């Protein structure tokens, strides 16, 4: 299917990145790139270094070695706040929402960086605060509509089923209008129907907003269906990189997933 915005120029490049925690090498000389408007998957068995990679991209971890360029600019002294300002948003494997707040309020927090008014204005609901809130609420409502969560708009997140919570998290990440969206196991723990829904939403987001998507999954089937290109990690190293078709037939990938007999 052709997209509204075809896959374009280089957006992110990762070169020779290594990350170690004490003696454990989580990532070992990994290089790959992401083009704009692309759906890019990072897969690998448990402990392959997928989440570490995502945390590096998002500025949580600082690699000891290697360079990362985002829109041509090199990552130096990156932290997650700065990453968000650059237009990188993410979701978490184990859902990090405010459980006691409503869906609407949770998604509103995604607009945080876009609010210009100060603390006093917000507290007293005067001046810019009022105007901004209306503007942001409109943006948030459009996302709520897009992800079809109107019926739980005013429900506290903690009361929602898991699949819906995942969708709310996606909504919050989208509310930041990111250039690049990092999804950490968006389909983990879901049943087949929820997975299909999630796939549709990810593709819709990519198509409608043109958002570049980097996602981590260990469910191979899902990834192969929706990704343009796939990076495969195993024990912190990249073992394959390419279209789903080439990756699927790569002997090293098959071995990593199924295991090889060590005679």
């Amino acid at each position, binding site marked *: 299917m052709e997209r509204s915005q075809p896959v374009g120029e280089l957006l992110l490049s990762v070169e020779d990145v290594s990350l170690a925690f004490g003696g454990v090498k989580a990532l070992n000389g990994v290089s790959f790139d992401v083009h704009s408007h692309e759906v890019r998957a990072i897969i690998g068995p448990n402990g392959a270094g997928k989440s570490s990679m995502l945390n590096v991209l998002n500025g949580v971890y600082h690699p000891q070695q290697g360079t990362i360029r985002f829109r041509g600019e090199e990552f130096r002294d990156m932290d997650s706040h700065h990453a968000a300002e650059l237009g990188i948003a993410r979701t978490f494997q184990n859902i990090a929402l405010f459980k006691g707040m409503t869906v609407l309020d949770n998604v509103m927090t995604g607009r945080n960086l876009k609010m210009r008014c100060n603390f006093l204005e917000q507290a007293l609901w005067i001046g810019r605060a009022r105007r901004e809130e209306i503007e942001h609420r409109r943006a948030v409502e459009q996302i709520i509509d*897009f992800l079809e969560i109107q*019926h739980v708009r005013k429900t506290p997140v903690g009361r929602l089923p898991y699949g819906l919570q995942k969708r709310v998290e996606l909504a919050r990440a989208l509310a930041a209008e990111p250039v690049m969206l990092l999804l950490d196991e968006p389909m983990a723990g879901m049943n087949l129907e929820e997975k299909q829904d999630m796939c549709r939403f990810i593709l819709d987001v990519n198509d409608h907003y043109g958002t570049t998507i980097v996602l981590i999954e260990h469910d191979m089937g899902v990834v192969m269906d929706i990704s343009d290109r796939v990076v495969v990690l195993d024990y912190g190293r990249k073992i394959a990189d390419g279209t789903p078709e080439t990756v699927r037939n790569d002997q090293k990938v098959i071995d990593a997933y199924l295991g090889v007999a060590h005679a």
Partner: protein
Amino acid sequence: MLDTFPKLLMHHAGVRGERPAIREKDLGIWQTWTWHEFADEARFLACGLAEAGLTRGSHFALVGANRPRIYAAMAAAQCLGAIPVPLYQDAVAAEMAFPLRNAEVGYALAEDQEQVDKLLEVLPQCPALKHIYYDDPRGLRHYAQPELESYEALLARGRESYRRDPAFLESEIAKGNGTDTAALFFTSGTTGTPKGVVLTNTNLIERSRVVADWEHITDRDVVLAFMPPAWIGQNIFSYAQPLVAGYCICCPESAETVTTDMREIGPTYYFAPPRVFEALLTQVSVRMDDAATPKKWLYHYFMGVARRVGERIMEGKPVGFLARLQYALGDLFVYGPLRNVLGMGRIRIAYTGGEAIGPDLFVFYRSLGVNLKQLYGSTETSVFVCIQPNDKVKPDTVGPAVPGVELKFTRERELLIRSPGLFKEYYKNPQATLEAKDAEGWFHTGDAGYIDADGHLKIIDRAKDVGALTDGTLFAPKYLENKLKFFPYIKEAVCFGDRRDKVCAFINIDMEAVANWAEKRNLAYSGYVDLASHDAVSALVRECVEKVNADLAQEAEIANSQVHRFLILHKELDADDEELTRTRKVRRRFIGEKYAPLVAALYDGSHSVHIEAQVRYEDGRTGKISADLRIAEARSFPPAAARRAA
């Protein structure tokens, strides 16, 4: 003369242009179209459609839920003298092919991608269909079919065209008159293929006006439109009558938000089929079951008070001072808050119709102080035939005839109707028209009933469904099923007994209520099939059936039609499996044939039966499920008369 809907619309735009005509909850906020805006939208759209070639007398299909744009399109088609054909939005593609082909529909408006997909699927079978407009563009950007165009684009062209030549449209509107066809409604087809019911402007306008006057409906009333617009029972209250009386209709955000939306809007005028009231009551019962003990006590105590005096107080009949005081307290603590939660706090008039309502269910709402009344009518009669008057509501009748309606009966007790609202014909089906409407203009309803001592019409059942047991006892299946369905645990029931020695039944459990009940008793189950086959659930249902039997024993004529044996079905009856109609009436004959081995087992005395059945999923795929169903016996009671004699 205001004899057509477009003329009425322009009239309201003139006299109450700034009053709200339609509200829709969009992006979390209720957005309003005034009458002025509604009229403009219809004007522009009509010009766009005229430019696209829609002509007088041709058909324009509308497929979608209640949206302002669907209603604007309906008005736009009528402006040009074209005939809107609303279709059920939850019908599968194959079901849409017949009406589209039958009415040679050339133009259609679809709400969203889902509906567009269905129309495109049947496109090869409907050669006349050349233009499909869509409202919500989401997901449709990559569709390259030449038939497709967005509503926005059509509207924009129409606006241009109207600017150039406003006189064209005004003259088109002026050309219309009352005898023109206003709309074509396809009946849900309880039997056989659907039939297109042709209703004229006069049919719909005259009936709407008589009832609006009779009930003092004004432009201050508010209606929530949440049933399919293709159903006349929705359409008359959300299109025909508002255009006559000038009141405002509200479109909910989505099907899942109706309860919340209803609470926010607080409609004053309400119509819903019995199953909606049933579902609401089930919800209330389930939640009250979970409430803390003092709250439960309060609820049960005051509901008892309400049952005793609530209705009499609402009807203004004499009630003792103490009872009034009790009821006032109840109103403060229970009824008022409950009405509020249900979104019924402002209701002046609520109707139910489409099928019979269980008397206990009916009385529940009335005793709460909701002025719920029964209404009798059908698509062919422009709905309004009988309505219960405010001061005289009897739960087992549907009230006297509305002014202008004549009723009479055949020897077989079939009800015949003559009314100014009577349909013109079945579209392209003179045979069926002739069978339904005789030379003197009497419409044969197919319903059996009689007029009681107060002049109220009492409907027993469909004439063809009313049968007799082998001992001659009257067998009215619907009546029994409704009694069973009043229990929150029973969602659907199908009774058999015609020309048999006793009555037996299929039962569908209500998943929500029974699951809640099971949870409290720590009953483990894996899903619907498992829960339905549980021994304890069977015992629970048996209790319900026995209560119904005890009740039936009090009614001499039908005391022998008590339910002797029943089984709990392994799956929910579903319209997608053709077991229910789209308006969710059970298709008893079809079910009887489909599950013939089960029916046989009910009567041959066996204790269990094995079933393998095909189910159809929403996306059209089919699957198989199999189960062993146990057949349970229910105690029956000697008739009251016999007991007294003994």
